[in-house]
């Protein structure tokens, strides 16, 4: 068991290292950097510029910069933002929190909807109800995120039912606690709807396929013959048998918690990690970009790792295969 854990951890660490290298490489090889842009600004004196450059050690060779950055990283220090002139980590964290609020809610909703619907649909495979649901999900599938997000925005603006953009209304700080919650929740409706609409059809199809396949398995027929109730059969047995691909998907859901909502956040002006990173990219704020990319990769890698662990725990075949080595 520990061998397995250690191997997966080493794998994850390797991935993170590789990604950080890649990210660092990209950004340092890029033509133009923050300081070149600043040089064009007449308000900043030449001495200030060279002082700043020395401070950020821009002129050292790349390997040295990477080494320093990597060692700082291990101490939890993600570097300094040129644009905001503050450490990167707290900046990222505030934004990441906002993103997680959105994607976390959307993910929970998607799974709550997809599991029962998928099981229900698999039960009635091929019958009118299932076919209708398949068509509905197909329609959702065809509409690209961008189209959906913008479309909902246009509708919201014209109907004036929901706030259109941002996370909080004007005067938020003066609201009562309950009002604050309601305010944020209202602002969340549109972006969460888009996220759910984007992820639901895919997940639903997968659940349906996995459960349908599981329902075919002989041991389930045998169980039915023993008189086990339909409901128990569906949820405890069929779903468990279908677990393997679903757990992998769940790991994927976890993994994309930070990165999957970038577009939606930008369109809906939600103050999350996405728009923040975009802004940093445009401003060539090196350490913010690297920190952000690393953070979302961390989530992806962790998501996969958690999925691996869950699979190991859930699927005895993997355990025996790992033990047999």
């Amino acid at each position, binding site marked *: 068991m520990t061998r397995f854990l250690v191997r997966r951890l080493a794998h994850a660490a*390797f*991935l993170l290292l*590789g*990604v950080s290298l*890649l*990210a660092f490489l*990209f*950004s340092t*090889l*890029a*033509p*133009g950097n923050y300081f070149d842009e600043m040089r064009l600004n007449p308000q900043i004196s030449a001495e200030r510029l060279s002082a700043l450059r020395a401070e950020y050690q821009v002129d050292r060779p790349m390997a040295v910069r990477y080494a320093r950055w990597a060692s700082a990283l291990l101490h939890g220090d993600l570097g300094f933002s040129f644009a905001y002139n503050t450490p990167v980590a707290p900046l990222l964290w505030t934004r990441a929190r906002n993103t997680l609020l959105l994607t976390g809610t959307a993910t929970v909703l998607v799974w709550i909807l997809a599991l029962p619907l998928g099981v229900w649909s698999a039960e009635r495979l091929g019958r009118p109800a299932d076919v209708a649901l398949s068509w509905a999900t*197909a329609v959702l*599938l*065809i*509409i*690209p*995120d*961008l*189209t959906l997000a*913008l*479309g909902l*925005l*246009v509708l919201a*603006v*014209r109907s004036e039912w929901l706030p*259109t953009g941002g996370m909080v209304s004007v005067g938020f700080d003066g609201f009562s606690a309950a009002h604050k919650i309601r305010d944020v929740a209202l602002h969340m409706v549109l972006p969460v709807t888009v996220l759910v609409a*984007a*992820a639901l*059809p*895919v*997940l639903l*199809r*997968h659940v*349906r*396929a996995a459960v349908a396949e599981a329902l075919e398995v002989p041991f389930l027929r045998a169980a039915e013959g023993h008189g086990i109730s339909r409901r128990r059969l569906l949820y405890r047995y069929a779903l468990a048998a279908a677990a393997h691909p679903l757990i992998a*998907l769940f790991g*994927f859901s976890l993994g*994309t918690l*930070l*990165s*999957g909502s*970038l*577009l939606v956040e*930008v*369109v809906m002006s939600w103050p999350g990690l996405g728009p923040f*990173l*975009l802004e940093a*990219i*445009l401003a*060539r704020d090196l350490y913010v*970009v690297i920190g*952000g*990319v690393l953070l*979302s*990769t961390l989530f*992806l*890698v962790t998501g996969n790792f958690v999925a691996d662990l869950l699979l190991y725990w859930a699927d005895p075949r993997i355990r025996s295969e790992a033990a047999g080595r």
Partner: protein
Amino acid sequence: MSTRSRLLLCVAVLAALHLGVACAGFFAPYDPAAQDREHPYAPPMRLHFVDGQGGLHLRPFFYAQALRSGSFDAYEENRTRAIPVKFFISGAPYRVLGVLPLRMHLFGGDVPVYLLGSDGYGRDLLSRVLFGGQVSLLAGLIGAGLTLSIGLCIGAAAGFWGGWKDEALMRVAELFLALPWIYLLFAMRAFLPLAVPPLKAFLLVIMVIGAVGWARPARMVRGIVLSAKERDFVRAARGFGASGGYLLRQHILPETASVVLTQAAILVPQFVLAEMTLSFLGLGVPEPVPSWGNMLASLQHYNVLVSYWWMYLPALAMVPFFLGYLVLASLLQGSRGTSKIGEVFGGV
């Protein structure tokens, strides 16, 4: 209907859609860059068949729109003059495939006809959607082609060579898969020069999109090559003294054809979307060249969102293509439908 005929139908429809966009010059009434300062943000004009007196006309007509006096964005129809739609008229010159100069357009009128309305500079939205489609679709197609080529080469090499070279290549592929692709896309694009002329920007976008997605196709190709390598007919060919290149060309790579085609059907719409996203955010093809993405960028302004709803229409242009490619991909995959589509559309 058999799968084969369904497939042919699907391809035919997709081809027709692409052809329509390729002949944008013909189907579009105006030049996409032609500005009309007298009709900024004109709403879509309605075609009528029945006139004010209840008379039915076979040839559709419309009423000219003009700015209401004193207003800068409210239009009213001038119902005194019915302007018939003219078909196959001569209009702004254009080039088919950049080579053949023509002037014939499908339809037009004596006064400006804005079927989908116009934008802030008075440019016809329909024309811009059609020409923008050329940019976006081409970016998607070439990008997908690039990704698949890279993926095919690397996957085939890894699978064929085996050993440490295979391990190394697959580790690199894993790295690319571990990065959230949207961030990778943006980071790559943004770290290249931002302010470039449209053609260069277009090429950069294609390059970036193409370089991002190779890992998944590479892994799939590698799997196929690995198993194909062990087939007896490949060993038999080795027994006649066939070289590695011969084996790859004649026996192994043909086995990858179906996977590559399916991946193409899946990747093209994804990449079109990627271009749209990049352009929407200002990292893609810049003005004045239209692309479905940058045409939507104006929607980020609140007043546009509120008052000029037709500016949203370019977002819908993608949908029939998406549908076509989705159906194509699921047909190509046969009964194994769910697995791969979900994997890709669920957010790479």
